[in-house]
C-alpha cells in the first residue's frame, strides 16, 4: 500500500499536500494527528471514497481502479468510530453481509462468522440479536468481525475505539492483537491517541497540517511522545 505525492483540498482548504508514504505489509500502522489534521481524509483516499486531486494511490503496486471501486473495497476492511452496524439486520446478518455481496456460499459465510465471533469473544447467543441490544464494546467487536469477514488484505480503522471506555478498550486491543497474530494483514489505524498507537501499532505516521511531520517504529514513537502530546493539546 503506497501513496505517491498525494494532495487534496476541499475548496480553498488544503487538507493534504504532497503525501508520499509506503505502509508496511502485514503490520499495524497508526496514523496519528489531531482532529482536522487530514488523517481521516487520508484513509478515505486509500479506499477510494475520496479521489485525490493530485498524486497516486497504489494498492499492491497497481493504481486504484475507480471504475470497480466497490468490488475493490470488498478486499479492504473498514471500521469506523460509531460502528455503523445496520439496525435492521441481526448480528449474524451484519457480520455476514459481505459474504452475501461477494456471493460466498452461505455455509462458508456462517462458519467464518462463528470463527470471528469466537476470536473476539462475542457469545453466540448474540447471533440473532439486533445491534441495539448489544453494549458499545460488543457492537465495536461485531463491527471488527464484519470488516474481516472476507479476510481482506488491508484493514482501515478510523478512530475505532474512541467512543469506548478505558476498560472496554483494553479488551478489544487484545482481541485485535490476537487476530493479527492469527491472520496477519496490513492495518492502517487513524487515531489521535498516542498510548493506543504505542500499544497496537508497529509503525506510525504523524500527520500535521496536511503533511507528514514524523514517521517510524515503536522506539521512534516513544522518543516523540513529549513533542506529540504538546502538539495535539
Amino acid at each position, binding site marked *: 500500500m503506497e501513496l505517491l505525492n498525494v494532495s487534496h483540498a476541499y475548496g480553498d482548504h488544503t487538507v493534504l499536500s504532497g503525501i508520499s508514504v509506503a505502509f508496511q505489509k502485514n503490520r499495524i500502522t497508526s496514523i496519528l494527528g489531531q482532529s482536522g489534521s487530514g488523517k481521516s481524509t487520508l484513509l*478515505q483516499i486509500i*479506499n477510494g*471514497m475520496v479521489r485525490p486531486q493530485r498524486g497516486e494511490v497504489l494498492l499492491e503496486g497497481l493504481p486504484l481502479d475507480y471504475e470497480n471501486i*466497490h*468490488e*475493490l*473495497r*470488498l478486499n*479492504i*476492511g*473498514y471500521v*469506523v468510530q*460509531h460502528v*455503523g452496524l*445496520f*439496525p*435492521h439486520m441481526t448480528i449474524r446478518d451484519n457480520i455476514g*453481509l*459481505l459474504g*452475501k*455481496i461477494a456471493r460466498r456460499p452461505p455455509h462458508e459465510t456462517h462458519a467464518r462468522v462463528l470463527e470471528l465471533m469466537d476470536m473476539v469473544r462475542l457469545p453466540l447467543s448474540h447471533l440473532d440479536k*439486533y445491534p*441495539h441490544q448489544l453494549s458499545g464494546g460488543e457492537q465495536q467487536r461485531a463491527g471488527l468481525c*464484519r*470488516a474481516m469477514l472476507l479476510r481482506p488484505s488491508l484493514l482501515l480503522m478510523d478512530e475505532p475505539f474512541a467512543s469506548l471506555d478505558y476498560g472496554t478498550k483494553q479488551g478489544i486491543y487484545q482481541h485485535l492483537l490476537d487476530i493479527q497474530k492469527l491472520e496477519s494483514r496490513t492495518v492502517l489505524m487513524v487515531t489521535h491517541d498516542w498510548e493506543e498507537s504505542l500499544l497496537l501499532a508497529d509503525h506510525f505516521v504523524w500527520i500535521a497540517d496536511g503533511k507528514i511531520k514524523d514517521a517510524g517504529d515503536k522506539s521512534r514513537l516513544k522518543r516523540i511522545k513529549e513533542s506529540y502530546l504538546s502538539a495535539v493539546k
Partner: protein
Amino acid sequence: MRKTGYSLLLWLLFQPLLSQGQSGDRITVGAKHFNEGYILGEMIGLVLEDAGFTVDRKFNLGGTAVTFEGLINDALDVYPEYTGTISTQILHLEDTIPLERLRDLVEQKLGLEISRPYGFNNTYALLMKRSKAEALGISKISDLIQHPTIRLGLSHEFINRRDGWKNLAKFYGLPHVPRGLEHGLAYQAIVKDNIDLIDAYSTDGEISRYDLLLLGDDRNFFPDYQAVSFYQADLPEEAKKALGKLSAAISAEEMQQLNAAALFEQKSHADIAKKFLAGKGIIAASTSTAPSIGGEILAKTLDHLKLTLLSLLAAIFIAVPLGIVIYRHQRFSTGILYLVGIMQTIPSIALLALMIPLFGIGFLPAIVALFLYALLPILRNTVVGLYTVDPQLKKVASAIGLNDWKQLALIELPLAAPAILTGIRTAAVINVGTDTLAAFIGAGGLGEFIVTGLALNDTDLILRGAIPSALLAIVIELVFEGVEWWAIPKHLRQKI
C-alpha cells in the same frame, strides 16, 4: 399456499377485464341513481332478458354526464332517459322541438337512437294538497292568479332553472314570491301545512301517497320530459324490438304508483318492475327470486376488494420506483410531488367524473381514479422514508463495498420500509372509503348499496354497504399490522 395466492392475484387482475368484453348477446343496461331510474332500468333489463339476451346492469350511475358518456364510449348499450334532458342537456337546444325532429337529431348528431315514449311525462310540476286545492277551486296553474296569498315553497334549483319559476311566473303572470326550500323537506312541509304549494317531478311516488294534486299546465309552459329508451344504433334488431314493448306501456299514474311502491313498500326495484311488466303481459311471469342478501353483500364486497387491491397494487408499482427516482435525482422531486399532490386535492367525485371522457364508465376509470389517489401517500412516504435513512449508514455501506443498487436494496429500502408500509396502509384505507363513490360511474362494489340507499332514503340499504366497507377498512388495517409485524423488526416499527 403461495401458488394459491398467485392464482388469486391473477384472477383478480384479469377477471374484471374478461367481464368487460362484450359478446354478441350481451347487453349492458345503465340507469341513473334515482328511484325512477332504477325501476326503468330494471324494466329495460327485463324485456331484454325476456327476449333472450344476457344483461349486465350498471345502475347507480352518477347522472346524465355519466350515462351519456357511457353510451358514447360503448360502455353502455342502453339506458332510460327523458326527451327534455336529451334536448336541453345533451343537444343544448334552446327551444322545444317535436319528438320526430328530436329523433332525427339524435341519429344525425349523436349516432344514437331513442325509442318511442313509454307513455308518461316526468316533467316539473306544481303540487298542492288535494283538499286545500279543491276548497280554493284550484286545478290548474292559471287558477293561481286568483290566489296571490298562497304560500309557495320551491326548490332552489327550480327557482333558478330556465324552465323554472322565474319564466313560469312571467309566462302565467303569477304575482307570488316563493320561499326557497330544500327539496327533500318539501313533502313534509306541505303535508304538515307549513306551505301550500311545492314543485316536484310529476311522477314522484309521494304524489299519490299524500293525496296531492298536480296542477294542470294549461298553457303548456313546461317542456316535455317523455321517458324513452336511449340506445346504440347498432343494437340487434331483436333487442330494439324488445325495447319497443315498453312504448306506451306506462301511464303517469302507474309510474307514480311504482315509485311509491319502491319508496314506501320496501320492495326491490327488480320486483316492482317484474310484477308490473308481467301483470301487463309484457314479459312472461317468472318465479325467479332476487339473489340472497348475504350473497349480494359478499359479491359486492369482493368487487370492492378487487377495486381496492388492483388500484393499490398499481399505485405501489408506480409510486415506490418513482419515489426512488425522486430520491436519487432530487431535481425532479418538487415537480413530481407537487403534481401528485394536486391530484389529491381534486374531490373524489370530481376526479371520477374527469375519468369518464378518458376511460368511459365502469371498472377501468374507477381503478385509474383510485390509483391516482393512492399515489401520493405511497410516493411521499417512500421519499421521506429514504431521505431519513441515517447518512452515516449510507456512507459506511459504500465504504465496505456495497454499490449503489446493493445499498438501495439491502440498506436504504429496508430502513425506509416502515415509512413506505405506512404510506401503503394509508392509501389502502383511503381507497376503501373512496371506492364507495366509484358506484357513481358504474364500477360496482359496496357503494352500490350506499348510492341506492341514498336515492331511496333507505337506512338499511345504506348500512348494508357502509358496515361491510367499514369492516373491510378494519380488516385491511389488521392485515397491514400483520405484514408489519412479520416484515419489520420491532425496534424499527413506526409508532402510530
